[in-house]
């Protein structure tokens, strides 16, 4: 037994109430230790020296990539989340602003051909009259409203309707400001 093996006194100190059991455990431990084959210590020494020398000679490998890559990945994910949130907020604000504008103008017409005001103005308008000018002013505002809604909602049919309304309005303008029927006849006659 080597000097480093726990001695009996230490063992009995552990459990003074059962010194016999401590003694048996100590003997059992000693038996297990004595089962070590002769020459095994030399084998251990040689193996340990070889392992220590190999480890000391090996270049020091440091973990440099994984943690940083992982950190960068997390940072990118955070940035992406933030950008997505900002974009959602911006889109929401635009939508709310558009709807608010629309609601504020609820008293007027909400479409190129809808709304009693627009229809009434058209019905009473005479070429060159004041009603016609009012109708034209209303048309400009209505077209603008519709443009906002179209821009916000990306509504293609609405966009088409707006273009149609614009074309119609410009055609009215051309008819109103164009030459009279007699002029046309003269021109044709001159042809």
């Amino acid at each position, binding site marked *: 037994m080597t000097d480093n093996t726990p001695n009996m006194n230490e063992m009995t100190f552990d459990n003074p109430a059962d010194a016999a059991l401590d003694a048996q455990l100590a003997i059992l431990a000693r038996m297990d230790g004595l089962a070590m084959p002769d020459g095994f210590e030399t084998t251990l*020494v040689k193996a340990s020296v070889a392992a220590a020398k190999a480890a000391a000679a090996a270049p020091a490998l440091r973990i440099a990539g994984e943690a940083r890559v992982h950190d960068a990945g997390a940072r990118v994910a955070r940035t992406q989340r933030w950008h997505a949130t900002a974009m959602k907020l911006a889109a929401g604000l635009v939508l709310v602003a558009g709807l608010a504008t629309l609601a504020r103008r609820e008293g007027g017409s909400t479409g190129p051909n809808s709304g009693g005001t627009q229809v009434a103005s058209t019905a009473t308008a005479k070429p060159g009259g004041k009603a016609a000018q009012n109708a034209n002013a209303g048309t400009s505002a209505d077209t603008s409203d519709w443009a906002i809604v179209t821009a916000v909602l990306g509504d293609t049919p609405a966009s088409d309707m707006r273009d149609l309304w614009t074309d119609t309005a410009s055609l009215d303008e051309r008819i109103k400001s164009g030459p009279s029927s007699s002029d046309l006849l003269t021109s044709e006659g001159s042809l």
Partner: protein
Amino acid sequence: MTEPGTDDMATLLAAAARGEEPAWRELVHRYGRRVFALVKSRCGDVDVAEEITQSVFATVAAKLGGGEYAEQGKFEPWLFRVAMNRLRDHVRRVKRRPVSSDDGAIEGAASPQAGSGVSRAELDGLREAMEQLAPADREIVELRHHGGLSFKQIAEMLNEPLGTLLARHHRALKKLRELLESGEGGAEGKKQPRAKAAGA
């Protein structure tokens, strides 16, 4: 058991880290047999105990040589923690306790000393009783009695309060005594399935 001074130990470990043979001879002389006894008690096979003990020292040597251990007066707990980890690896690998093949060796080379007052039958009974202890309790008993660690060192190693550890050790010894008195841990008999103890 007297602990080597921290300075002495630091010097010794520094030399061992450089692969100096005298340092390793000293370390193996101090701890080799204790580690072997602990492993042998758990696995019950001399050949396996040799293999695991060598693996433990190779691991410790590699970590020392690689500068992964800084001496802070805790070399022994660290060494035995490596040993316990290797033992757990072994238990996981074999999944069952191997049949002891060295009873003859014990009979011849390590029989109870004359005048010790302990018979072979009593020791066999004690060994059987230890196998029936809860793995955690058995670990404490083996670290204390086979590894020769102090309770403070075991507490540090297992990250447990000293009081808790002492209570567990006391409970384990009490359980051992009960098993021995009830005959369940006696040699006459009852070959309890060894996998029960080794399966944890």
